[in-house]
């Protein structure tokens, strides 16, 4: 009985202490801030590029958000084993152009005519352009397409992919890889993945609708 009384008076003291009251109010404020900030920032796996251009780009980080650093309005780095997807809304056919810089030992895969959404990208990687230091391969065409291209580590190079109806035209580092016919529908998205144990930098991606010149 005495123990119970002691316990109850202890509870009463804790309940009425101004410090506890302040602590509780602070904690409530903290939770409110956390909740409101979580509400405001929303989905951290999405980002925007080229915001002040006529064709702004919407991006999506496919794996850990810490693996991608969007450090400028037109540039980002992607860590090894990670990937990003980006699109300009409504543009499916047309030219997408971007500049890459690879670190030694890395390879990059650029997917076109697919989407980053799980059910399709897992089963259908679209048309994949894999860029290594000395060769570019394109799949899934038969016979397989493999074109030697000299790409130096740490030296920027341009990748251009033009989708035009049933045709896709690919240029990597000023080398024409080929013009391929495909029945896959064009999509808005381009997916870029870093395959090996190094990161790459992607600078100034741009989508141009078909039949336009700048």
């Amino acid at each position, binding site marked *: 009985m005495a123990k119970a009384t002691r316990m109850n008076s202890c509870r009463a003291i804790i309940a009425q202490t101004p410090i506890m009251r302040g602590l509780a109010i602070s904690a*409530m404020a903290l939770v409110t801030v956390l909740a409101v900030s979580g509400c405001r920032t929303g989905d951290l796996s999405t980002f925007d590029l080229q915001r002040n251009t006529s064709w702004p780009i919407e991006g999506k980080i496919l794996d850990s958000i810490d693996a991608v650093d969007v450090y400028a309005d037109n540039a980002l780095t992607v860590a090894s084993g990670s990937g990003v997807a980006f699109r300009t809304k409504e543009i*499916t056919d047309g030219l997408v152009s971007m500049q890459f810089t690879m670190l030694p030992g890395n390879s990059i895969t650029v997917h076109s005519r697919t989407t980053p959404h799980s059910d399709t990208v897992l089963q259908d990687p679209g048309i994949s352009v894999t860029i290594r230091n000395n060769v570019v391969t394109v799949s899934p065409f038969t016979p397989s397409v493999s074109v030697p291209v000299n790409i130096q580590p740490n030296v920027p190079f341009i990748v251009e992919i033009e989708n035009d109806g049933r045709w896709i035209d690919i240029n990597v580092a000023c080398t024409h890889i080929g013009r391929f016919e495909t029945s896959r529908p064009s999509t808005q998205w381009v997916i870029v993945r870093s395959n090996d144990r190094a990161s790459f930098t992607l600078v100034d991606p741009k989508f141009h609708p078909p039949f336009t010149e700048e």
Partner: protein
Amino acid sequence: MHRFVFFVCVIASLLFCVGCGTYTRVEKDIYTITETDTTVAERVTNQPGDRDNGVIYPSSRTITTTRKMVQRDSVAERTYPNFIRLGLFEGIGTIGSSINGAPSTNTGIFGLFHDIDETFFNAEKDTSKSRLFSGEIYRIGVTEWRLRIFDEDPGWSWGLTAFEFIRPDDGENHTLTGAGVLTLRKRFYLKNTIPYAAITPFFSAALAPSTYTHFGVSADLGSIGGVNLRLYAAGVWGVPQAFVFKNALFFPYLGIGISLFDFLNKEEELNVEWKYHEHSSWDLSIAEIVAVKANVEEAFLRPKEPGESTPIISGFVGRLVSATIALPVLDYRLTLGTSLVSFLGLGLTEFAIGILPLRASYIWHPFQTDLVIEPFAEGAFAPSKFVHVGFRAQMTLAEEVSLLLQGGFVNGSTGSNAAFNTEGKRPPIIIDDPRSFSAVYFGFGFSFFDRMFSRKDLRYGKGYPHE
């Protein structure tokens, strides 16, 4: 004050319905499909009569080549869940929460087992016995969204509870109610297959109608079919009236909780389309009601006048918040389920209420339609004790509405010391022991806000990651 409480409840409901976050994420993709077609038409018309033959013999052949290209856009919409947790109801029975030796709420484990006589007939609370469970906590409308903090550390979530009701005991001014309760949780998963097991520290705060903070840790098991079990070790500090720092309460407690219609997603499940989601239940339903004809002397709601016969509808049976979970036998067609409340009101003296009854059944689809035949056996131990066996046929009428045909046999006791006499006199007479009864019934009714699943919807045998 009442207006203020009403206002807060309205705001909380709006928050729950609209939410800072959403429950479904929609991804829209545009595909441009290009179709080309080339038509070659050759036409040769032989002209009658002589012709002048030259070095090149003149031909009447004409070749027309027509190329046609059609481009059309196809828009695909994919829907994904966008919440970590979405729950309808949670009940917790608390141990050791009594303040200043106040009596128990007498609601037992999960805080749900209210005495029938106290609830419906204003019977005096029995304080003669000591009770293990002192109080109760209810949560209605629990939502949680992913919180990306600490370098995207997994398991963090923040949420809102539309309504929370905390009674540590039956003492006066010991009740705390919160609307729009903010909650922060971190789940440490111990088991990564369904049902998940996790240790979850949490912190929540409510501003009104009571102002309080609630903090602690829970051991969670679930969800499977929306059913979760939780053990709590937590504390509550607060004042019953918002911002009036008088009569402050503080109590620690141990708790045992259950939640129904409470669905949990791990982070990776937020990237799985709704149509590929993993389902463990044959049926989930919020409310069912069946009007019945039973072999009773007097109807449940309408006492018989002298010389009057029993009406054709003598009562009704119903269930609230039910889950029918597939068991891994007989091609997963044997099930185990429960409901928040199972009510059998067959006649004036033949009624029973089961809280969290256990229900075994077999699911049979006789045709390739939404018709389900389900023989079942149900048992409840409180507040009424009964065994209920029968069958039911359920057919989907529209989205979230089904037609029910149900028949069964009930044997048990009402669990109430109040009993209506057969002349229908009210208030009821008091009897020493709850009245026993048995009855057979048959009836039809409807199930509302329900979702019936087919065998191909169940997650088993598909190699899903959380099987």
